[in-house]
């Protein structure tokens, strides 16, 4: 896997032993099964994660109490080659409602062989989340005000 970071963009890729159709299907239909559990904006555990497979759809988490959190919008849907979504979670670990301040992630599927597919993720325009963050500097200062991304960062590695 590639860990290179370029300006304002994160790129990752993986090669899987599966057809491009299966690679796309598993990614979109089973997304909730393999996404890291650290990713939860709800106050309660997630009962299910739904990936609506169409432009204008969303990825949303449904909590065990029925509450919902829509944290990504489907911007492009082109099976089995590509899906592009928004990332509507801000630096304060809240759903960002100002669409100008959301980034986007694109997943591309490239058949390398009938049973081998390269999957590339490009998460770009991260800088959009930063617009206006300096105004919040004072508000998030101090040990208790650390963005929750940070506390979750350690958790992400800790469970490796």
């Amino acid at each position: 896997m590639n860990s290179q970071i370029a300006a304002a963009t994160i790129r990752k890729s993986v090669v899987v032993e599966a057809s491009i159709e299966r690679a796309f299907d598993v990614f979109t239909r089973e997304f909730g099964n393999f996404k890291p559990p650290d990713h939860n904006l709800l106050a309660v555990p997630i009962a299910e994660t739904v990936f609506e497979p169409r432009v204008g759809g969303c990825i949303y988490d449904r909590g065990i109490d029925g509450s919902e959190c829509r944290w990504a919008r489907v911007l492009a849907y082109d099976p089995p080659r590509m899906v592009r979504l928004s990332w509507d979670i801000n630096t304060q670990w809240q759903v960002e409602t100002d669409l100008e301040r959301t980034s986007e992630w694109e997943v591309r599927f490239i058949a390398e062989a009938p049973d081998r597919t390269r999957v590339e993720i490009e998460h770009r325009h991260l800088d959009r989340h930063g617009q206006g963050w300096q105004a919040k500097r004072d508000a998030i200062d101090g040990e208790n005000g650390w963005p929750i991304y940070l506390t979750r960062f350690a958790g992400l590695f800790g469970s490796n």
Partner: protein
Amino acid sequence: MTSDTTQLSALGDATRRRVFELIAERPRNVAEITPLVSVSQSAVSQHLKVLRNARLVRAVPRGASNVYHIDPHGLGQMRAWLDAYWEKTLAAYKAAVEKPGDTS
């Protein structure tokens, strides 16, 4: 080079990223970090300097040495989190898609 680019390139180095992760776990000084990475203490100091300049960590003087904390400002933590998030997601995805006995 903008500060954003500095932050990103600061985390592009594997050792430096490890140093950042260790500080993300809890604040530490150079002597605490060095045994946990495979480079010399002076090399760790250099990495810390880069992380400081990128505003990913900040130094808090304590006695004769500095204790390093994650800098709570800026987008560095979000980027670092997302970088790790996608790494972990893809690894779990690969396991799911290659699960034996479930091919289509």
